[in-house]
């Protein structure tokens, strides 16, 4: 029954499945890509020097990517645009910070568990209020909840205002698996623990979206009335998916706090963070499961790398977004199949490349002609 492929849109073509991946419903190509992805994730600390960025920074990209994977459950399936997912990322981060700073919890995994519980609780509460809304109302409500949380934390002494909280227990960083680590050891253990949990979470999400529940979410996304008259309890299902979505964000935020050891409102709770998480999902390809994760890594890489190259590096995000919307509306991962097909066509028939060039040349000629005509009319008037 599970039919939705790793990468969508194959127009009813029958898909060959290798026995190994049958349970997951992957094609051989997808299975290879998944393996390559897993190897890259596990190898990241060893070859990140090649891309000119420390792996801890890319780790941060992965964390925002996880939040984007969560957001994408709403975006892709129930077709709801949340502008407030930093609320869960921030809840997770502050969950860790508060438990460490105020309650002296010193074990990192306990902190993470607490953070996930707190973030999920926040998602349950917000979800209760927003599940009945759609479109712009849903977007604005999530934004409003996010903003309320930010403003509260920003103004509250309990959260130490703008300065934020240290994730330290009497000056020490938390332990992991009950052991104290050096800085590098701590980061590596945290990284690999996160990667293992990430793979479990991706598998869980994959199973979820291919389950009857996932199909029901698709149905809700298409038309709520239509979903109701076959008996789908729309609000309750949206509420559940919103909560799951928030859980992913809370997990990501919790790990972020453990990595940074210092949680401030602006990088974790501010509504711009919500926008970035949304942007990551679109950049990576919201029609796919892993697209948002890749979008998170790519965006953080672009932001961090560009900081050294250009003064107005934030403009770069805007330019990338424009390019994506105009040329790759399905995002990086979502566009892979069509790019692959186009390349295969051209390898098959080199004449197509010549046609491409001719097409581009013709388009440029037309643009120039039009510009000349416009100038002529402005300067000389009609005729």
């Amino acid at each position, binding site marked *: 029954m599970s039919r939705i492929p790793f990468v969508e849109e194959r127009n009813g073509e029958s898909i060959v499945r290798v026995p190994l991946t049958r349970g997951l419903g992957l094609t051989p190509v997808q299975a290879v890509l998944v393996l390559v992805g897993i190897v890259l994730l596990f190898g990241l600390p060893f070859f990140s020097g090649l891309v000119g960025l420390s792996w801890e920074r890319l780790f941060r990209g992965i964390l925002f990517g996880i939040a984007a994977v969560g957001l994408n459950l709403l975006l892709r399936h129930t077709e709801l645009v949340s502008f407030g997912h930093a609320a869960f990322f921030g809840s997770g981060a502050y969950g860790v910070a508060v438990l460490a700073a105020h309650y002296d919890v010193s074990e990192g995994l306990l902190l993470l568990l607490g953070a996930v519980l707190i973030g999920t609780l926040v998602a349950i509460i917000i979800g209760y209020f927003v599940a009945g809304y759609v479109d712009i109302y849903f977007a604005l409500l999530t934004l409003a909840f996010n903003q309320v949380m930010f403003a509260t934390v920003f103004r509250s002494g309990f959260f130490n205002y703008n300065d934020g909280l240290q994730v330290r227990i009497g000056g020490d960083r938390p332990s992991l698996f009950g052991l104290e680590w050096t800085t590098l050891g701590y980061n590596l253990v945290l990284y690999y623990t996160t990667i293992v949990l990430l793979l479990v979470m991706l598998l869980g999400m994959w199973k979820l979206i291919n389950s009857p529940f996932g*199909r029901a979410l*698709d149905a809700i996304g*298409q038309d709520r009335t239509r979903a109701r*008259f076959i*008996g789908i309890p729309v609000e309750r299902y949206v509420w559940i998916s919103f909560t799951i979505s928030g859980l992913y964000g809370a997990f990501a935020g919790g790990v972020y706090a453990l990595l940074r050891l210092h949680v401030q409102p602006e990088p974790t709770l501010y509504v711009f963070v919500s926008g970035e998480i949304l942007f990551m999902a679109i950049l990576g390809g919201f029609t796919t499961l892993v697209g948002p994760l890749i979008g998170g890594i790519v965006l953080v890489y672009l932001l961090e790398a560009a900081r050294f190259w250009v003064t107005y590096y934030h403009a770069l995000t805007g330019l990338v977004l424009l390019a994506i919307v105009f040329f790759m509306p399905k995002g990086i991962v979502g566009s892979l199949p069509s790019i692959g097909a186009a390349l295969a066509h051209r390898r098959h028939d080199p004449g197509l490349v010549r046609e491409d060039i001719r097409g581009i040349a013709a388009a440029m000629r037309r643009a120039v002609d039009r510009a000349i005509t416009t100038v002529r009319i402005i300067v000389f008037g009609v005729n």
Partner: protein
Amino acid sequence: MSQRDAAVDREATAGDPLLEVSNLSAVVQGFEVTHGIDLEVREGEAVALVGRNGAGKTSTFRSIMGLTPVANGSVRFDGEELLDLRSELIPKRGIGYQPENRDLFTGMTVEENFRLPIWTSGRARGIDDEDALVEDIFDLFTELEGRRNAEVQNLSGGQGKMTAIGRALALQPDLLLLDEPLEGLAPVVVENLKSYLHEIIKRDISVLIAESNASHVPDIVDRMYVIERGEIVDSGDPEVLAEDEEIQMLMQGGGE
């Protein structure tokens, strides 16, 4: 009125009332679009609701399904008041609804469109063999068998209607509401679909069919209501009503 009384007398033997709509006024965007609709479907009965486009057929169906607000009136199904229920519970009580525009779940296959209601409402309907039920629907609509794994947006008009009816049947309903199942189809497809409807009616499911063409339904239904401007204006034997000149005038938009 005497004709109507006679019809009620004749049908009194058909079984207990399953659906009783009384004095129902549906509201669309603040306007009352039906005015005190009274109709009834008995167990095992096939009934048609005939009227022109805009007469209030779809609004009546939607208010039975809890999808349109109601100003007053009552909808009792199997003795239970449906207007008090949340709309998603109504299919679980046993009403399958085929909306006028096919309203299928695009991006999913025909089979998935059949399975979705079973997944979400199957337990409430006491369905324990999901596969058998799906096969049963494909056995009925033999034409769909070959399109089982086609995504529904690639279906023809007739196949789409069949899928929408099949999806309603997947609830194993006691009552089917079919909103213009024959509308917009080529004559040969209409005949084809009518034979399927006949097949469903024979299965002991109660059926309420909305139809804008009075001549389509007499050979498949037991009883007929005529709706005009949101009111039931006549009811009775479909053969008699379909021949009635006044009704024919009404259907063509000339009557008053």
